[in-house]
């Protein structure tokens, strides 16, 4: 197995699918001549040409609309949002059109497209480029929402998303993009490993128990999975055994894996970068309450970002999103600590 960076795993999935299926093409801002703002599509223009690696103006509505029409006509577009924040100008195309076309036309059309890009908080990018907005899509019937946390899942889930016949939002973790394999291995051995099989894929709607434990279940996704693993390492030093579940996809949502874990640990902490109100953690907590109340030994704890637009100043930013410290504290509270 190769040890890869997250960004290289994403690029590998995209390149392999473009080689395999001539209907797949990449469209977005700076994806071609500029090689991608983060160099994800480095070499793509050279290999695939400008019909399949399409540089666009800064016109997100146009990018998504082009993708929807092309998908309805049988192609498989991958629309890159330079940052997932920029999907908001195109929210009408995503929510009102891509998500609903199949249903409102009684199944006559399908929209096999991927809308992907880096997402998440941090790096002093400030309020308009540093946020976790996955719930805006996870609320919408007709969409699928994918949130990979590891290099293996970045490859396996993106590959599945491209082959899926529905509009799939793939919110990648910007903070994970350039994490070095060695640093990931130091958090948990195997964390940077990506299977060599070019067809390696991960099904949507299947959460992953990344670390087994028996005292408390930590449910997380995307960058927060890394924080959860770090927290679990620290908790282990104090004799607390935490199980870490990576949700992998928010829509479809695999609650069975979560509920099975809670049957074992009887305690749950749900972690998200998002703002707290009405977020993914709220949904998961509510489902745990409805479906596993009698398995619980303590209230479900949520760990979330602060309810503010992201501040720029480093010290304030550090206060605005959760870290392993917050997760450790929440886990201890489920165990009767303060």
């Amino acid at each position: 197995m190769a040890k890869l960076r997250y960004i290289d795993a994403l690029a590998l999935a995209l390149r392999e699918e473009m080689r395999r299926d001539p209907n797949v093409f990449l469209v977005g801002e700076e994806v071609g001549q500029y090689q991608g703002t983060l160099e994800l599509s480095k070499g793509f223009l050279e290999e695939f040409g400008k019909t399949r690696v399409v540089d666009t103006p800064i016109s997100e509505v146009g990018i998504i609309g082009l993708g929807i029409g092309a998908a309805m006509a049988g192609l498989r577009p991958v629309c890159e949002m330079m940052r997932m924040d920029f999907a908001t100008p195109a929210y009408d195309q995503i929510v009102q059109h891509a998500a609903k076309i199949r249903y409102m036309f009684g199944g006559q059309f399908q929209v096999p497209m991927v809308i992907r890009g880096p997402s998440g908080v941090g790096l002093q990018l400030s309020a308009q480029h540093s946020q976790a907005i996955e719930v805006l899509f996870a609320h919408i019937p007709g969409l699928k929402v994918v949130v990979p946390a590891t290099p293996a899942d970045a490859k396996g889930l993106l590959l599945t998303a491209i082959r899926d016949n529905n509009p799939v939002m793939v919110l990648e973790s910007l903070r994970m993009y350039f994490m070095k394999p060695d640093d990931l291995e130091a958090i948990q051995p195997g964390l940077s490993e990506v299977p060599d099989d070019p067809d390696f894929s991960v099904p949507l709607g299947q959460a992953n128990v990344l670390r087994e434990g028996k005292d408390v279940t930590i449910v997380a996704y995307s960058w927060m999975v890394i924080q959860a693993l770090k927290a679990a390492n620290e908790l282990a030093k104090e004799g607390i055994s935490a199980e870490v579940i990576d949700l992998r996809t928010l829509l479809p949502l695999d609650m069975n894996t979560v509920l099975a874990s809670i049957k074992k640990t009887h305690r749950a902490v749900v972690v998200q970068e998002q703002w707290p109100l009405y977020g993914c953690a709220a949904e998961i907590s509510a489902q745990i309450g409805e479906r596993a109340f009698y398995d619980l030994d303590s209230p479900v704890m949520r760990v979330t970002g602060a309810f503010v637009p992201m501040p720029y100043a480093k010290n304030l930013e550090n206060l605005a999103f959760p870290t392993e410290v917050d997760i450790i504290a929440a886990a201890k509270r489920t165990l009767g600590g303060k």
Partner: protein
Amino acid sequence: MAKGQKAALDAAKYRRFYEQMVHIREFEEECLRAFQRGGHGIGGYLHLYSGEEAIAVGIIGALDLSAGDCLIGHYRDHAYALAVGSPPGPVMAEICGKYDGCSKGKGGSMHICDAERGFYGGYGIVGGNVPIALGLGWALKYRQQAGVAVCFFGDGSMNQGAFHETLNMAQLYKVPVLFVLENNGYAMGTSIERSHANTDLTDRVSSYNMNRKKIDGQNIVTVYEEVSKIVADMKANPAPFFLECDTYRFHGHGAADEAKQTVVYRTKAEIEAAKANRDPIAIAAEILLEAGVITDDDIVRIHEEAVVEAKAAMKFSDDSPVPPADELLKDVYA
């Protein structure tokens, strides 16, 4: 082509166009009557095409749908389906929310479609269908197919950002989309004078360096002949084209504002004058009679047939079941 102009017209083709226009008119009037008397399942929004028939019929008549040409519409969309040849029964059943509707009753009046015939559907968000048309054209270009994608929209769409992003990209990439502005003068209840800083809407797109033209959308001969030339050019040298069709809608924005329109945004006299002078069916009749394409007897017969067909469509719909409850959760995902 002006009224009264003698021309050698393809008789079979124009007789069919005339029939289609009359059938669409009667279909729409049947919808309105059903909406007003109630009991057929029509609820919500019902946007009628009466007065604009020459555009859908003339433009779709100039396409080769079996060879890859395709179209996408907006919410005033019944006519596009009828003009591509969708059977009227399922179209009416869709409008009435019945299971035999073309979208199984899940889309309603605004979301008629016909995948088999290249009609990619009607959309309810003003301007929202325009970027999707870019993708339909893109697929033709991507596959190196010599076709065109037609996008119908109204004057209201031109004030949406989506429209301008799309036109810029279409021209940049030379995507074969025929952008058809059906300028009926009103975006719902707001006239173009009250909503466009420049009311010459063809001039408004001049900044995109796109081929463009304004035509009389009430004259079927003009529409068909102009669009036939444009489409042939687009197929020879793929590039987008902006076509403004000057038209008028005889009814309110929707059936629900039928009574209100003359109170709040336009006069009865204006509507009556348009019906008297700008009715595309009357204009077509005059030209086709003069050209010897149809006779007075044909006109009477075609109208009678259209009435029968519209009533049969409503009967088809009335006889169709409502969608079964288990359809509720189907079709969300492929």
